[in-house]
Every structure is written in structure tokens, then in C-alpha cells.
């Protein structure tokens, strides 16, 4: 049978529980803007009732602690989308720098500097003047000067691409330091979580772990595998173990063919990381795919123009009556050995404008048949089956489409991240209105308990005074 003192005890427990609950609310409000904080709700548990003489007596309530409002599946999904978005984001940054080298010419001036397209046309056009003035020194000089501009612009573009590639490589090479710091931190948190909270949500520790995983997934593509006792293993998207339980594996770097490669447990994981996601994946895609693609197009263009123009010039007769020979070739451009590096090495080697072979082989110096042939080359399909200007135009279109494609991809992925983030925040974020109403609820509950306590107090006084109004009130 219940006693007044047991009622006192129940009420003091209720006051304690409400106070604890108010603490939880206070903590939520305090952390309303803390990054990675997951809103917590107090857990009330009914104490086991006591049965005395066939009657069940309630024993009050206990506040057993706060539970974080967390959806691990949603969090993992967010991480996954985050790594895609940051991959396309860093690739887009690289591509934007890349495409700035090939800004569309407005055409306001007919030969805007730095535009390879107009350089190509100007170069072949310079032979048109030679058609009518094959011996004119100014017309010959103009061939060499337009050739110089073309070679200079192609070579500069290639050099800029190379330095962009180096810059991206350096940026990517810095990633493992951050990755290693994060994987060690996660492994440590794993250890703590497994020890302190093997069966339930670990609250703040779990928040920290999630925060670190989220940062990690922005850097590199990862897979998360949960293990018993609230543990976690993380691999790269391609399956190499980054950490398992309390052990993390350090990512190391090495240089292969002039670029940084990445190793985990002595395995080269560069290719897997490239397609894996995260900002590192985006950087590696730009470094190993986008920039080399642009470079190889420029190489092809430079190689074809250099070799074909040289061959045509060697097949004619120059102003001094000479025809190019293997020993003394009449090369306008430096003759490339192979397509690779043709662009960066492109230069004009001819210094004497008289060496331009405007005349056909064996013809007098007043002949311009070879100049006509050179001018007509602008319409011939000698660059990968296309005319030089068409090749350049296609290159520009392809590059623009790639950038625009990645842009669209990035926009969609970012929107999806925002959406998932919203979903996650809806569940895990601190809503101050909620907290205000909770606080009021617990406050009222506390007030009610106090009221009951005070009533009990009055009853107790009556009991002590045995119905007499006397000393105890």
C-alpha cells in the first residue's frame, strides 16, 4: 500500500526527470547552430511498479538520457551525393579555368590576339597575298609573322594547360594529408563509440563521427560499412580499405610519369579515386582526362599544320631558286617527330622570308603555284580528316559541351544535396519553435509536480498535527 512518503519520492523523481528534460532542451537550444549537432530528445521511462498485497503501486518516472534524432541511411545517402557533387564541383572549377584559355572571339577586330581560330585563318590567308605578289618581301614577311603568331598562341595555350595540370596535381597531392587526418579521427571515434555505446546511439560522439565522414566524403569517394557494436568500416568507392574499426590506413603519394599517384596499403589506387568522386576525384578527372584531351587536340592540330605546311613548302621552289632537301629542308615550322608535345614545341624555325617556296618546283621565282597550293590547304582535310579551322571549331564545341555538361551535372547534384540536406535537417536539426514548446511542456510538468509536492506537504502537515492546527503548517 502506498504511503505519503512514497508519493513524495515519486514527485521528487518527477521533478528530477523534468529538470533533466529541461537540461536536454537547454542543450538543444545552445547547440541550435552547431554544425553537425543532432537534436536530442529526453527519454522518460516508467519505473517498475511494486505489487503489495495484490495491489500494483506505480513508482514514478526516470529520465534515462537523451536520444539523438538520427537517420543513418539518410546520412549515408547525403554523404554519397555530397561526394558526387564535390567531384563535379572541383572538375567544373578546373574546366572553367581551362575554357578561359579559349574565350570566344567577338570578331570586333579581325585578328584578335590569342585566338587560335583566327591565327589559323590569318596564316593560310597570308599565302593568298603571295599568289599575286610571289616575290614581294612584305607579303613573305607576313607569312612568317602570321606563322609566328599561330605557333606562339598554340604553344602558349599548351604551356598554360600544362601549368594548370601541374597546379591541379599539387592541389590533389595535398588531399591525402587531410584524408589521413580524418580517417585517423574516425578510427579513434570508432574505438570510443564501440567501447562506450556498443548497442545504442552514441550521441555527441556519433555526431562528431558523422561530421568527419561528411568531410571525408567531400574529399574522396567512400563506401560505409557498419560493423557490430556500432563500429564502422570505410572503403574508397573502388573498394580499398581506408579504415576499419579502430585502425586507419594511411594514404601515401608517389610520382609516376611526372604526376602524383595515390597508394593505400602499397596498392596504386589512382584510377579508382579518379572515378570515385569527392573533390579529389574531380581534380584527378580534370588532371588525367580533361586537360590531356585538350592538349592532345592541340598537339594534333600543331602536328598536322607543322608537318603538312613544311612538306608543301619543301615541295616548291623558294625565292633563291632552292627546293627543300632532306639535308637542307625549307621548314617554316619546327618539324615535330611525333604528335605528342607538338603543340608546346610548336615554333617558327624559318628566319629568312626568301625561303618561302611560293613557286612550284622548277618554276621561276615569279610563279605562285605553290603559294596557291598553300593557301588552298586551309580548305583541305589534313587534321584528323578535317580542315584545320573545322578541327579547331569542333574542338571548341566539344570543350564547351564538356564544360556545360559538367555544369548541368553539378547543378543537379548540388540541388540533390540541398534536398537531402533539407531532409536530414528536417529530422536532425534543432527547431527552436519545437524547443520552445517542449520547454513549456516540461516547465508545466515541473510546475505540476511542485504543486502535487506542495499538496502532499499540506497533507503531511495535517497528518503530523493529527488534525489540530498547531505548530506544523
Amino acid at each position, binding site marked *: 500500500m502506498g504511503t505519503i512518503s512514497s508519493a513524495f519520492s515519486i514527485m521528487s523523481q518527477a521533478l528530477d526527470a523534468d529538470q533533466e528534460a529541461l537540461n536536454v532542451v537547454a542543450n538543444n537550444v545552445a547547440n541550435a547552430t552547431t554544425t553537425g549537432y543532432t537534436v536530442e530528445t529526453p527519454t522518460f521511462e516508467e519505473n517498475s511498479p511494486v505489487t503489495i498485497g495484490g495491489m500494483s503501486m506505480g513508482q514514478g518516472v526516470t529520465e534515462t538520457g537523451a536520444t539523438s534524432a538520427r537517420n543513418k541511411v539518410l546520412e549515408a545517402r547525403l554523404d554519397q551525393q555530397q561526394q558526387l557533387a564535390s567531384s563535379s564541383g572541383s572538375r567544373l572549377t578546373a574546366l572553367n579555368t581551362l575554357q578561359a584559355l579559349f574565350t570566344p572571339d567577338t570578331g570586333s577586330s579581325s585578328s584578335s590576339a590569342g585566338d587560335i581560330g583566327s591565327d589559323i585563318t590569318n596564316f593560310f*590567308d597570308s599565302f593568298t597575298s603571295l599568289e599575286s605578289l610571289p616575290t614581294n618581301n612584305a607579303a613573305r614577311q607576313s607569312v612568317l609573322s602570321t606563322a609566328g603568331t599561330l605557333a606562339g598562341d598554340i604553344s602558349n595555350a599548351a604551356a598554360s594547360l600544362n601549368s594548370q595540370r601541374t597546379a591541379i596535381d599539387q592541389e590533389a597531392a595535398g588531399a591525402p594529408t587531410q584524408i589521413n587526418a580524418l580517417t585517423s579521427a574516425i578510427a579513434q571515434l570508432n574505438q570510443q563509440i564501440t567501447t562506450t555505446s556498443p548497442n545504442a546511439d552514441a550521441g555527441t560522439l556519433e555526431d562528431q563521427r558523422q561530421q568527419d565522414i561528411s568531410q571525408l566524403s567531400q574529399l574522396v569517394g567512400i563506401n560505409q560499412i557498419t560493423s557490430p557494436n556500432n563500429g564502422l568500416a570505410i572503403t574508397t568507392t573502388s573498394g580499398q580499405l581506408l579504415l576499419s574499426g579502430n585502425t586507419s590506413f594511411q594514404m601515401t603519394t608517389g610520382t609516376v610519369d611526372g604526376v602524383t599517384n595515390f597508394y593505400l596499403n602499397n596498392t596504386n589506387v589512382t584510377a579508382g579515386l579518379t572515378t570515385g568522386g569527392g573533390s579529389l576525384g574531380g581534380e584527378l578527372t580534370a588532371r588525367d582526362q580533361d586537360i590531356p584531351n585538350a592538349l592532345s587536340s592541340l598537339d594534333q592540330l600543331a602536328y598536322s599544320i607543322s608537318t603538312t605546311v613544311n612538306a608543301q613548302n619543301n615541295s616548291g621552289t623558294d625565292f633563291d631558286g632552292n627546293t627543300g632537301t632532306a639535308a637542307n629542308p625549307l621548314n617554316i615550322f619546327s618539324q615535330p617527330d611525333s604528335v605528342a608535345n607538338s603543340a608546346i614545341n610548336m615554333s617558327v624555325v624559318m628566319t629568312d622570308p626568301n625561303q618561302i617556296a611560293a613557286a612550284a618546283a622548277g618554276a*621561276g621565282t*615569279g610563279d605562285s603555284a605553290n603559294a596557291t597550293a598553300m593557301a588552298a590547304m586551309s580548305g583541305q582535310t589534313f587534321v584528323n580528316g578535317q580542315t584545320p579551322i573545322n578541327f579547331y571549331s569542333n574542338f571548341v564545341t566539344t570543350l564547351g559541351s564538356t564544360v556545360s555538361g559538367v555544369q548541368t551535372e553539378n547543378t543537379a547534384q548540388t540541388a540533390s544535396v540541398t534536398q537531402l540536406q533539407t531532409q536530414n535537417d528536417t529530422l536532425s536539426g534543432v527547431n527552436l519553435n519545437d524547443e520552445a514548446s517542449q520547454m513549456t511542456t516540461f516547465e508545466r510538468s515541473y510546475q505540476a509536480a511542485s504543486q502535487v509536492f506542495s499538496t502532499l506537504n499540506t497533507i503531511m502537515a495535517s497528518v503530523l498535527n493529527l488534525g489540530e492546527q498547531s505548530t506544523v503548517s
Partner: protein
Amino acid sequence: MRVDPFYATNLVGSLDSAQANEQQLTAELSSGVSINSLSQNPVGSGENVLLLSQIQQDDSFTQSSSQVTGQLQVADSALGSVISSLTSAISLATSANNGTMNASNTKSVANEISGLRDEVQSFANTSYQGQYIFAGGQISSAPFSTSNTSPAVTTYNGDSDVNYLESPNGQNIQLNVPGNQIFMGSGTNSVFAALNALVADYSSGTVNVTQAVDDTQALGTALNYVSQQRVTIDNSINQVSAASEAVTNVKLQLTTAQTNLMQANFGTVSTQLSQAETQQTALEDVIAQLNSTSNTLFSKL
């Protein structure tokens, strides 16, 4: 269902993108160019490269064609002068052939015709900007020279080379007629052979009239032949002018197309900019309202 307590953060994201949009539109307005990077319009960027290239080619052809026209006109006027010299030579020879002249008169005719031959030779050695225009490919030295022998012999030191100018649509326009073709035609078509023969006919004082009449007729034939060759030059002048005009028209169209492609449409862009600005203002207002402290439940407690 709870709502995302960080709605303001999301709105700031929208605000960012509205501002980026405004920036882009402002850039279009200030530069007047609608395609500022390849990714904005990849196909348009490629198209632009091709259009500009064609415009440049047309420009270059127009420049070359004015140069070429000058050269062709010099050739034409030289041939015009040759024809008038030859006409004088024929009338001199005709008067000498009627048998009324004494020896000294025929000798003086021989001298005059010889002078006319030298004149024709100097026309045949016409140069334009340092290039002998009737020398074929050997343009650096005078193509014609005449010996001091009697009968005199005129030799051609040039070659039969013909140059062409290729127009942007692939038409080949002949730029020169080699001197041997004009002045040294085969048989009776040779101007210098006929002139030298006439000089020889009259220089002795006693004229073989039959021979002289034949030679005079030959000069007449040669004159016609020169006129025919002149037609080639005149045709080229017309072709260059026609091609140049066509190219100018094409260039006009191409320039219009290129301008349409690259020029920002100010009306559209301004409207878009004003919309983006309205959006930005609205977002800012919403954010201000939502973030106001009086809007949380705490302020009502």
C-alpha cells in the same frame, strides 16, 4: 512532419544563385557579347570560329583582289599602248608599200618602225611593283631584248608560267599572260618577228614590195592576236571585280550572322536582369522576415 529549421540557409543559397545570374547578365550587358565562355553556348562558339574564319578569308581576298586589279590594269593599259603602236606601224608600212617613196623616205620609215618596235618592247617589259608582268615566272628581269643585227632578232627570256588567284569559292582567276604568248606567237602571230621583218624590208632603201606587203599583213595578224590576248586580261579584271563583289556580299551576310550569334539581345537581357533583381529583393525580404527574432516562439513566452 517537422520542417527544416535552416530554411534561411537554403534561401541564402537561392540568393547566391540569383546574384550569380545577375552578374552574368550584367557582364552580357556591359560587354555587349552574349557568349562570354565556351560552355555558355558550345555549338555557337564553334559556329563563331567558322564564321570568323570565313569573314577573315573574305577580307583577305578583297585585299588581294585590289592588289591584283592594279596589276591587271597595268597589263591592260600596256597592251592598249602596244596596239596603238602597232596600228601606227601598220599605217607607216602601208604608206611605204604604195611605191611612191624614194629610198631615203623608206629608210626613215624603217627608222620609225624600229622606234615603234622599241616602244612595243618597252611596253612588253612593263613592270609592276618591281615585277615584270609579261615575263611568266621569270619576273625579276626584263623578258624581251633585241639584237643589233640586221635583221634584228627579239628574244624572250621569260617562261610560259601562268599564275592564278583562287577566290574563296574556289574559282581560279588568271593573273598574267606570259610575254611569249602575247608577242611571240607562232608563225604570223609574232609581233616582234613581223616588226623586225618590216624594219629589214625598208632599211636597205630598195623595197621588195611583195615581201613588204606580206610582212605588213603579218603585222596586222599579229595585232589581232595581241587584241585577243588582251581579252584574257580584261576577262580576269571582270572576274576579279565580280568575285570581289560577291565576296563582299557574302561577307556582309556572314558578319550579320556572326553579330546575331554573338551580340547580346539588350531587350531580353535587360528584362532578365530586372527579373533577377526583383527575385533578389524578394528573397532578401523573405530572409529578413524569417530571421526576425520576433518570429520565434521563444519571443511569445
